[in-house]
């Protein structure tokens, strides 16, 4: 069965802390994505990656960075967390090298609270 896992379901951090959100997929997918989900705003793309060591900015990359050292793992980094980064973070992967194939498989999400 297809699986995308995220390191934490709930996370509480303080303003200014460095935060790592980890995502692992076991489907050998090329594409991986990080979204945040906020009430009334739907899912907004932060960063995505088409291959190892490749990354591209989505709609809202400010305040975030990513790392993809291995194909199965895509990390989202908040260099200095702020309260406006309190949100649900969703990781996804898809099986193609092209974004034309938009059948994405999502993890369960990490609800991050920044105090």
């Amino acid at each position: 069965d297809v699986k995308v896992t995220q390191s934490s379901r709930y996370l509480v951090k303080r303003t200014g802390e460095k935060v790592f959100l980890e995502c692992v997929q076991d489907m050998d997918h090329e594409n991986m994505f990080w979204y945040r989900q906020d009430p009334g705003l739907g899912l907004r793309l932060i960063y995505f990656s088409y291959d190892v060591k490749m990354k591209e900015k989505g709609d809202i990359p400010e305040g975030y960075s990513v790392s993809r050292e291995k194909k199965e793992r895509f990390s989202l980094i908040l260099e200095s967390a702020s309260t406006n980064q309190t949100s649900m973070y969703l990781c996804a992967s898809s099986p193609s090298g092209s974004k034309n194939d938009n059948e994405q498989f999502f993890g369960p999400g990490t609800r991050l609270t920044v105090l």
Partner: protein
Amino acid sequence: LAKTTQPISMDSYEGQEVNITCSHNNIATNDYITWYQQFPSQGPRFIIQGYKTKVTNEVASLFIPADRKSSTLSLPRVSLSDTAVYYCLVVLNFGNEKLTFGTGTRLTIIP
């Protein structure tokens, strides 16, 4: 900039057909339209995908007009378990292409 718009919420009774429309005026030429379902405390789950005309699977149908500026997800004979948020996903082209989710439609099925 025009984005991808959906009704915020819809209610329906069990057993009825439900149609949810997504407007995407600036859809990229070569990209598919994909719909997802999301239950509370879960990530979205793929329902159906299409490029033009009509696509049907065991869960839903997807209707796409010739100009592709909108799409309609059709759920036949809904049940209580279809209560969820439904999102469309498209690639929009405003000079550069961007993968964009709609804002989601919260569907509530009434017994």
